[in-house]
């Protein structure tokens, strides 16, 4: 059987060109070309964009920056392991109503008093298009994405208690992030655009650093990046430092005003870079790095 095909996108071509929203790198967020294409495709076709990648490569920040660049409000829905799909739509607080009933509260006669809106409802009810971030969808139960299929596809849902259908006034731009802890169901994936944020290469990284710390000394950046990529190359680190760690570290280096020579120093007593705490987040990694650095020094 051929699955039903929705051709919504085709009508949209009639929309004037000027109205179309386009995303590109901003002064604060450096997006690679493939990311721009993926975001624009998801905006144009009004389908969710699923973003995966190493922790700290800017998945969550992407949604913030898309919202900022397009001048749209951002609604964030952070997923936890206990989050249920229905909570994104609405929650009916039956227990509160029962209690109010027992206490003889007047509110009890209107069921709508006990319906709490979820993030999706907020996004659908907004008058302007919004950017909806569903953060770390893989944290939730494995069935979670499946439960949201219809809602994200049709952008509407039905409230049983009040018998009303909530339909999105303007389809929100949906950005979903995943840390790859669980595999997502096929049916869900088929409805999304997908982008995997690779770890940036040195060139992109320099642009990212420049965007975040415009006043930083070029040489400091070069030395720091050098050390940083060396550090990432150390085999066996439990958590490799990522972009966000690098930015924090650079900030610290600037605040502490660490002179360039220290980064360059080949002093055998100082084996690991200053303020490494910003880069390496657990002590096994620090030990490992010390060992590797020590051996490397001895080899020189």
């Amino acid at each position, binding site marked *: 059987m*051929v*699955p039903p*095909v929705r051709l919504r*996108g*085709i009508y*949209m*071509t009639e929309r004037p060109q000027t109205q179309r929203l386009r995303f590109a790198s901003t002064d604060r967020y450096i997006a690679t*070309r*493939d990311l721009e*294409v*993926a975001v*624009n*495709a*998801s905006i*144009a*076709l009004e*389908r969710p*964009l*699923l973003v*995966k990648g*190493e922790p700290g490569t800017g998945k969550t920040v992407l949604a913030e920056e898309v919202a900022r660049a397009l001048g749209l409000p951002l609604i964030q829905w952070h997923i936890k*392991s*206990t989050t249920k799909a229905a909570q994104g739509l609405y929650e009916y607080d039956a*227990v509160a109503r*029962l*209690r109010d009933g*027992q206490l003889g509260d007047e509110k009890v006669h209107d069921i709508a008093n006990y319906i709490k809106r979820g993030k999706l409802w907020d996004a659908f009810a907004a008058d302007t298009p919004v950017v909806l971030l569903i953060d770390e969808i893989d944290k939730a*139960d*494995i069935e979670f994405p499946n439960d949201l299929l219809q809602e994200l596809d049709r952008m509407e849902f039905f409230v049983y208690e009040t018998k009303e259908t909530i339909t999105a006034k303007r389809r929100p731009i949906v950005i979903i992030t995943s840390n*790859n*802890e*669980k*595999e*997502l169901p*096929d049916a869900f*994936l*088929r*409805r*999304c*655009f*997908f*982008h*995997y944020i*690779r*770890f940036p290469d040195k060139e992109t990284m320099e642009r990212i650093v420049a965007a975040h710390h415009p006043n930083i000394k070029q040489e400091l950046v070069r030395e720091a990046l050098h050390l940083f990529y060396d550090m990432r190359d150390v*085999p*066996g*680190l439990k958590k*490799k430092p990522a972009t966000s760690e690098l930015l924090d570290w650079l900030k610290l280096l600037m605040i502490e005003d660490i002179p360039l020579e220290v980064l360059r120093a080949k002093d055998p007593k100082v084996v690991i870079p200053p303020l490494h705490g910003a880069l390496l987040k657990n002590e*096994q990694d620090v030990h*490992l790095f010390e060992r590797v650095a020590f051996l490397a020094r001895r080899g020189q």
Partner: protein
Amino acid sequence: MFAGFVSALRNEGVKVSLLEYLMLLNGLKQQVALYDVEDFYFLARASLVKDERLIDRFDRVFALYFRGLQAVHGAILAEIPEDWLKQLAERFLTEEERAAIQRLGGLEKLMETLRQRLMEQQGRHEGGSKWIGTAGTSPFGAYGDNPEGIRIGQASSRRRRAVKVWDKREFRDLDGDVELGTRTLKLALRRLRRWAREGEADELDLGGTIHATAANGGCLDLQMRPERHNKVKVLLLLDIGGSMDDYIEESAQLFSAARAEFKHLETYYFHNCPYEALWRNNRRRHDQTTPTIEVMNTYGPDWKLIFVGDATMSPYEITEPGGSVEHWNAEAGAVWMARLLKRFRSAIWINPRDPRAWDGTSSARLLRQVMEGRMYPLTLDGLEAGLKELQRGR
């Protein structure tokens, strides 16, 4: 428009659906990618591939299918390091060709010939469903001694390829890890248990609620309790005999101890590499075997498949029909591995040998490739990583 491309992708195991194909066409209609090969590539990738592990395959199909698009190939070629090209030239070009190039005296010409040669050979090589072809047809020879071969794939499209998850895992340093002994066995068990008992949530404790509500003077007092799941089903395939003898005890010990934790645990044995038959009782391995097909049909795709084996054998036992040391196998071990992995998508290989020795053994490298990197050492860290992989449930 690109129906052929889509079917080529499907042949390579990238399961593109009609919906996704229409998404791509719609994207083109919406002018998301306009007159630019790279943008088209990005758009196609974002709409057709939903798993970073498949991006690599997608790249290969894309490169083959859109061979005519010079820009793409220019970009790919430009990234092949020069010394590597020279090495390749020695490897792939005959004496006459080299002489001819000398006469023509141009690197461009050299690259052109090389490109053709590579394209041609990749085409033949990738004809199968896996990277491992039969020895003669693969450009990378008998795989055993060609680390370069593997690097070819990575160097040629490094720029446009997602970092493969399994690539990162390969470098896991295990220096600090303890080999799994009796002392650590308990810890490992706890991890297995945690895995088996996973499952979030809250369940209404009806008895507790009635009790608490009564105690509360009739005012409702809900009591919740955590739900207990134990629905993990494990199909365990153990390598037995030969080089595995040193490890079999600790492996079996671990999993039999864990038996109580799983709802279902089925164990079968194989020797070195699974072929058409497996057996349940090692003493009666010659008269009481179960056809592998039957095993595959008996257990559903929701079963988690765990191989335990040292993956140490002659590479022919994996790549060649008739390569088995014990009997004549009509089909190569890799074929059976691929079938098993297709049926049980959630699978790992646990290797009790020291991971530092893996890369030195061509069969271990081969199997790890067949497993798409999902080979883990029998250490606490290894088990944890392996179980995490299983938990992701494909």
